[in-house]
């Protein structure tokens, strides 16, 4: 009996080949075990239990046709083949569309049905699939997905590799890297599931499930890979549908279902691998020799029983002698000026991926999707109408465009919502954060729609009053609220929130001295579990005690209030709502410990426009009800939508100065705008339009190979990466970046203009 086993990599993210060989050696001590590899740099080839080696050239050099012929000859001669590599298993399935009795690997039809992330074949298993989105969607939608998942997301490659992308810039960098490595845009983002990882390993032959075991990770490597685990039987509620699934798939070979069990006990399926896992021999140690069961199923030759030595296994690091016939190759020279040796994928697996894409681009496409996303962002009608209202012959670019009807609609919607949510007991009112964009047209819209003016400086308060706000419609907030001196509004302001205990002491003194008068005086709480520099901290019992003592010092002839703020687009929408509930609990504690009832609650902010405006009222209505239940003395809730008002209210028009075409369709287009006008480029995607010079038609930009370079002589002045300019675009054409009315506008700066 001769058995070929591939996948002998034994680094930090090992392949199962050596474990399979150890298990087969135990089950079939007389079999000839041939280790197959595609690099002599793979340390597993030196494992003493390998009887013979078949070392091929790396995949990037290998002629797949002739190698395929050799594999066929080996199988025809009676050898069996167990693949330890996903990509090799795919290639073999493609090579043997009708299978081969000695190929102990799954057929292509089965592989298509376990394509991640959906793993369609597993629908009857008691598992859920973590939510995901294809990166073929527009950047606008991908950003929305990340916000919805609280930025706890993984960007995953089609076969291997995953990167945590906790921010937009990290996502863009990881996407560029994975796309390059795996030669495909077909990546996906998947929501993180917190819990403990466990797996089910199976062995099957021609649709018959020969055996399966469950493994819980008990120790992991820094990359999260198994270092130790415990083995147990697969429970019936999993085993029965698993048996059905194997039958339906006509599965042959090993397999692994990788899962996470959450705190409530629910299993979440991350992926199904078409091979045995690297911990395969751990199960053999526990008395479950699944590779031997596979060979037994295929040949009918009974394997030696596997004694159960322990229910638990762990790994150790071993030094083994190097085989004389395969001396160690030298380390590659480090790239000049770089640190370390580039050693990833020594067998050239990424090249195999590239070759498979070329030979069979549809290999991994489970079912052709007629609704596959086109990657183009949806542009609201009001945007188009507002942009069309400009005569661009008169527009000197770069220039911000005020989106008149869009802005009016946003403020009215917020105003209507506040009215709907208000009751006789509790008034809900919006606060316009002047800093998001101090444009007078927006401040006026805020005034006309019943907003309060939320100011972080006296200069902002002055601006609000100049536009028409009364003093009693002004809220002062933040650490710089007393600056500049001498500009405090005359008359009683609506609310003042202290940013620190020192600020509170100053406020008390100012109130006593008559320097300021406010209907409400309160504190801003610092979020205790999310890093923030603002507000009074709560992070230790001692600071909390100081806060309680300080609140008791506030004068009793003003009403008390509490403010908290965290940008929901940074922490994620669900996380923000959790923070909201958490803050209400702190408020309730403060109220109980100080004896000061909370009359006003001011909560913000930093809402991404779609999260604020697209949502129906239900979450906000629930929030109001929760406030009423937990803090029944609250009479006013001030809601700060932040940039949700300003961001869509302006766009930036720019013109293309030059188009530079490079190799492999890579294009650099220089524009007359820059990061001086788009300082938020790194933090979120902008919806972009190109206005055709001839027809005036507006066309959204999708993803492509063009980088839009700013006009500045600054290396990082890239205002958009990987976009697709429509056919026929040329120098002088107009581009419009929407969603530029928030901090892009208010934080833009003069640079490179002489």
């Amino acid at each position, binding site marked *: 009996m001769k058995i070929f086993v591939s996948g002998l990599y034994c680094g930090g993210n090992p392949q199962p080949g050596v474990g399979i060989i150890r298990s087969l050696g135990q089950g079939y001590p007389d079999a000839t075990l041939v280790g197959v590899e595609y690099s002599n740099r793979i340390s597993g080839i030196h494992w003493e239990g390998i009887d013979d080696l078949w070392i091929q050239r790396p995949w990037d050099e290998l002629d797949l046709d002739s190698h395929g012929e050799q594999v066929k000859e080996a199988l025809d001669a009676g050898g069996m083949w167990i693949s330890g590599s996903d990509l090799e298993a795919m290639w073999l399935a493609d090579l043997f569309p009708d299978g081969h009795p000695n190929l102990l690997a799954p057929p292509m039809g089965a592989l298509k049905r376990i394509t991640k992330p959906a793993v369609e074949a597993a629908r009857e298993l008691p598992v859920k699939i973590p939510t995901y989105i294809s990166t073929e969607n527009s950047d606008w939608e991908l950003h929305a997905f990340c916000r919805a998942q609280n930025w706890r997301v993984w960007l995953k490659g089609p076969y291997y590799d995953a990167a945590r992308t906790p921010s937009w810039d990290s996502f863009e960098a990881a996407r560029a890297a994975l796309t390059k490595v795996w030669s495909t845009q077909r990546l996906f983002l998947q929501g993180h599931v917190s819990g403990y990882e466990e797996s089910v390993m199976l062995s099957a032959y021609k649709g018959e499930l020969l055996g399966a075991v469950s493994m819980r990770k008990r120790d992991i490597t820094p990359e999260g890979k198994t270092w130790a685990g415990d083995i147990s039987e697969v429970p019936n509620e999993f085993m029965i549908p698993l048996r059905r699934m194997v039958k339906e798939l006509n599965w042959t070979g090993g397999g692994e279902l990788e899962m996470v069990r959450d*705190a*409530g006990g629910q299993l979440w399926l991350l992926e199904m691998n078409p091979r045995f896992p690297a911990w395969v021999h751990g199960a053999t140690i526990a008395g479950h020799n699944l590779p031997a069961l596979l060979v037994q199923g295929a040949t009918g030759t009974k394997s030696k029983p596997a004694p159960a030595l322990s229910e638990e296994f762990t790994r150790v690091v071993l030094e083994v002698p190097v085989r004389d016939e395969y001396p160690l190759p030298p380390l590659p020279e480090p790239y000049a000026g770089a640190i370390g040796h580039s050693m990833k994928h020594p067998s050239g697996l990424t090249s195999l991926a590239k070759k498979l894409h070329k030979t069979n681009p549809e290999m991994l496409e489970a079912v052709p999707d007629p609704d596959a996303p086109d990657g183009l962002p949806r542009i609201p009608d009001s945007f188009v109408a507002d942009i069309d209202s400009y005569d661009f012959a008169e527009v000197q670019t770069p220039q911000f465009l005020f989106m008149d009807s869009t802005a009016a609609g946003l403020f009215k919607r917020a105003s209507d919502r506040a009215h709907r949510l208000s009751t006789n007991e509790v008034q809900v009112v919006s606060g316009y954060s002047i800093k998001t964009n101090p444009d007078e047209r927006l401040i006026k819209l805020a005034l006309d729609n019943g907003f309060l003016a939320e100011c972080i400086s006296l200069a902002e308060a002055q601006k609000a009053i100049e536009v028409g706000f009364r003093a009693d419609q002004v809220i002062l907030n933040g650490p710089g609220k007393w600056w500049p001196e001498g500009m405090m509004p005359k008359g009683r302001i609506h609310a003042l929130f202290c940013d620190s205990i020192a600020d509170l002491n100053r406020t008390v003194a100012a109130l006593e001295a008559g320097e300021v008068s406010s209907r409400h005086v309160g504190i801003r709480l610092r979020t205790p579990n999310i890093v923030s520099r603002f507000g009074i901290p709560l*992070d230790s*019992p001692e600071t909390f005690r100081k806060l309680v003592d300080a609140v008791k010092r506030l004068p009793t002839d003003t009403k008390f209030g509490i403010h908290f703020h965290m940008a929901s687009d940074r922490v994620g929408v669900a996380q923000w709502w959790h923070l909201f509930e*958490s803050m209400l*609990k702190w408020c309730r*504690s403060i109220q109980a*410990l100080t004896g000061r009832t909370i009359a006003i609650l001011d909560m913000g902010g930093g809402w991404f426009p779609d999260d604020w405006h697209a949502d129906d009222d239900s979450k906000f209505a629930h929030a109001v009800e929760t406030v009423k239940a937990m803090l029944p003395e609250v009479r006013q809730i001030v809601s700060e939508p932040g940039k949700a008002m300003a961001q869509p209210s302006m766009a930036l028009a720019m013109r293309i100065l030059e188009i530079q075409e490079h190799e492999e369709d890579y294009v650099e287009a220089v524009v007359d705008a820059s990061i001086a006008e788009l300082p938020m480029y790194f933090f979120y995607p902008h919806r972009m339009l190109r206005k055709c010079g001839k027809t005036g038609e507006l066309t959204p930009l999708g993803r492509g190979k063009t980088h839009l370079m700013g006009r500045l002589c600054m290396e990082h002045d890239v205002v958009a990466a990987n976009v697709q300019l429509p056919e026929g675009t040329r120098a002088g054409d107009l581009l419009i970046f929407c969603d530029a009315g928030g901090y892009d506008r208010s934080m833009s700066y003069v640079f490179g203009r002489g």
Partner: protein
Amino acid sequence: MYLAAAEQRLDLLEKETDGAPCSARWEEFPFSVLSHHGEACCDIAREWVKAMDYAQLNGGDLLSGPRWLRQRYEWGPSVWPLHWCEAVNEKVIDCGAHAALAHEAFEARGVTAFRAQFVQSYSPEAIGQWRTKWVEGEASDHWLDDEFIYHEGNALLAGGDEVKLWDGSAGCWVNPRQSGGYGSLMAVRIFADEAQASAGGFRWGLHRIAPNHWHHIG
């Protein structure tokens, strides 16, 4: 727990207890209870634990372990009696204080939790090290025996009659598959009203644990 009370029980138990959980001395031990000064200092401490625990959940599952407590408070000797305002301001607290804080957190979340006592097996060397540390900390070493230790944690009702056992001073859930050896759980007792458990007691892995009685593992 109060040292005097514990030592008094030791005298009593060594004479009267039979079939005790590995060591007779812990048969009737009460779980540790933080004292309250009856003043604002302890009110503030208690409110802080509850509000901070909810904040630390980050939107996660209510059945998650309050890992942040172990991150904030190292495990080590505590001198009893210990008040709320003292415990929360310590850098190091023992398993009884850990369990008391975790219980407060679980209850504030609205999940059903119980105090739990464990007996674990360790080596004489480990126990010797702990004895030295506790004596140097002027804390009672009543929780140490020759090869077993007394330990405290929490039981969390996870659904139906199933419980999970939280070892707060280790920051992990106790593995319901126990096979003996170093660090293994030898016995557990869960304090609960009889009405809170089903007729067969609580289910923990393959074990059935009757409330308020020591249950021997393995």
